[in-house]
């Protein structure tokens, strides 16, 4: 066949082609997820606003009534508000904490896993989109949305919790595990890590369901690791107390025991130093004081930020691995 060679497109000559417009299609392809995610975020946000506003006021008023009752045998107070507050607080806290799992599952299952399983990724890569650009689009905008949504809900959660502190007798303490996490930056970092790990899982496993499950499980494992390491992420303060008082210091405990006259730390045989039996065994080992290493409430933000930093580092490692993997799989520049 004889054919005249004509340059099929102007961009083939010299000037670089404009970047493909991927965002619009990312949004279109994941429209159901986008709508669901936005609806859930708004719903959760509204619930937290209600919790921190009218419901906190109602529950606080009810507690005031209840406490005013004293020992009066018949006394009426607004028990419904108190119970509703408690339920809604628990539900919203759970919801804030479950978002990272949903993000990871979606990222692994839908964002990359399904595209690799069905082969549509080959369609993207043989249109004008390079694998690296494709991966950037799968990470950048979803990451921005994830940070916005989780940041907003965690902030609203903290706001609601702060509103109830000291006003509602059953408010969770700052170091209550779900409250501790839902009030800070960890949900944001965990969701971001979930996105990165999910994207990587989809690329590695190339199967939607497997990547979905792996990504969600990975978030669980990461969180468990962070929770285990949490007491050691910031140097604790030490409180030393008299044997008669037992170990003191409220917050996240790291370690406790007894101190000898030489300053050695020993395991405490018992914690009721005021009782004679216990006192005898404390004297036997030469204990002079109880000590406790712990994190007071002032360590809240250092602990949150270090934990979040670790998670973000994991996310960065997952992203770097994803890019390296894609590069190794798809392109090798011929010498």
């Amino acid at each position, binding site marked *: *066949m004889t054919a005249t060679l004509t340059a*099929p497109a102007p961009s083939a000559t010299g000037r670089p*082609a404009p970047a493909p417009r991927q965002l619009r*299609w990312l949004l279109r392809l994941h429209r159901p997820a986008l709508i669901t995610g936005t609806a859930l975020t708004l719903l959760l946000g509204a619930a937290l606003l209600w919790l921190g506003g009218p419901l906190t006021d109602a529950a606080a008023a009810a507690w005031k009534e209840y406490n005013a009752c004293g020992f009066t045998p018949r006394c009426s107070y607004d028990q419904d508000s108190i119970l509703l507050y408690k339920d809604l607080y628990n539900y919203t806290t759970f919801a804030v904490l479950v978002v990272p799992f949903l993000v990871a599952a979606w990222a692994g299952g839908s964002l990359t896993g399904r595209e690799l399983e069905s082969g549509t990724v*080959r369609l993207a*890569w043989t249109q004008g989109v390079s694998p690296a650009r494709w991966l950037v689009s799968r990470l950048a905008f979803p990451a921005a949305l994830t940070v916005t949504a989780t940041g907003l809900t965690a902030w609203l959660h903290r706001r609601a919790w702060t509103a109830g502190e000291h006003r509602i007798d059953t408010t969770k303490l700052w170091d209550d595990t779900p409250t501790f996490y839902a009030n800070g930056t960890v949900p944001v970092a965990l969701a971001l890590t979930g996105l990165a790990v999910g994207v990587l899982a989809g690329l590695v496993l190339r199967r939607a369901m497997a990547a979905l499950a792996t990504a969600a499980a990975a978030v669980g494992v990461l969180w468990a690791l962070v929770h285990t390491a949490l007491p050691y992420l910031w140097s604790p303060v030490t409180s030393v107390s008299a044997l008669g008082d037992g170990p003191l210091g409220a917050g996240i405990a790291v370690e406790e025991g007894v101190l000898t006259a030489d300053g050695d730390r020993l395991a405490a045989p018992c914690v009721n130093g005021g009782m004679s039996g216990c006192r005898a065994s404390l004297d036997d080992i030469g204990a002079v004081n109880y000590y406790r290493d712990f994190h007071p409430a002032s360590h809240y933000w250092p602990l949150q930020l270090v934990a979040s930093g670790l998670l973000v580092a994991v996310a960065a490692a997952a992203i770097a691995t994803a890019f390296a993997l894609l590069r190794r799989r798809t392109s090798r520049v011929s010498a």
Partner: protein
Amino acid sequence: MTVPAIEADALGKRFGRRAAWALRDCSFRLPAGRVCAVVGPNGAGKSTLLAITAGLHAHTEGTIAVLGTDPASARSRIGFVDQDKPLYPQLSIAETLRMGADLNPGRWDADTAERIVAGGDLDPRKRIRALSGGQRTRVALALALAKRPELLLLDEPMADLDPLARHELMGVLMGQAAEHGTTIVMSSHVVAELEDSCDHLLLIGGGRVRLAGEIDDLLAAHTRVSVPADTDLAPHDVVESRTAGRQLSALVRPAGPLPADWRTGPPSLEDLVLSYLRNPEALAAHPTTEAAA
């Protein structure tokens, strides 16, 4: 001299360090502007070769240049239709084409895309998931052609098209090749499907290139002979020979003029391809390097 569309040298690919080679020692050169048939049995390595050329797989060894550069750099100038014709099932046909326009800025030819889709009487509002296999092929071809590629790679493009659509789309492809000088490479395991439209052949078997070159040259270089069974065929290279009774029928590559008393005839393309595929050892006797030179 123009840059060749594809130039492969000792190209090899295996998926994983311990896996068998999907493609090995693959050397050939495809000049620009050709319509090339890549034929071979199932699992021969055709899809692997096309995917490497399209920049979807990194090769393991050897070199490949596509349109004068590496496959990844040539990405925007290559059109590719995968064997499975993957498309986003939730998009409509019209959306799929708009996506093509957005993903190929500066190259997109909306008229071509719409013309190909319209040829199939398809409602542009129809979702991809509601299309038949042949209709999906049509949309996939529209996407690949409308980016006005310089090199169009088609993996089993006609497999699920009916004869009418096959004829029409083949016409569209040939028109594209003639009008724009597009190099087209299409794989198939049905030789007859490609015989009329292709001018270049790449025969792959067992992960290796068995035969490569202009179809006319390849056919001219081989002769089908029919001689008495006790005839010595030397010094001509024998691709395949079969004895039936007192007759010996063989496909040979003449080393010089054949004796006048031999009954000879030109082989068909299918004959040629099948002879090579049936006789893997024939490769050694016929290094195809001249086709790659």
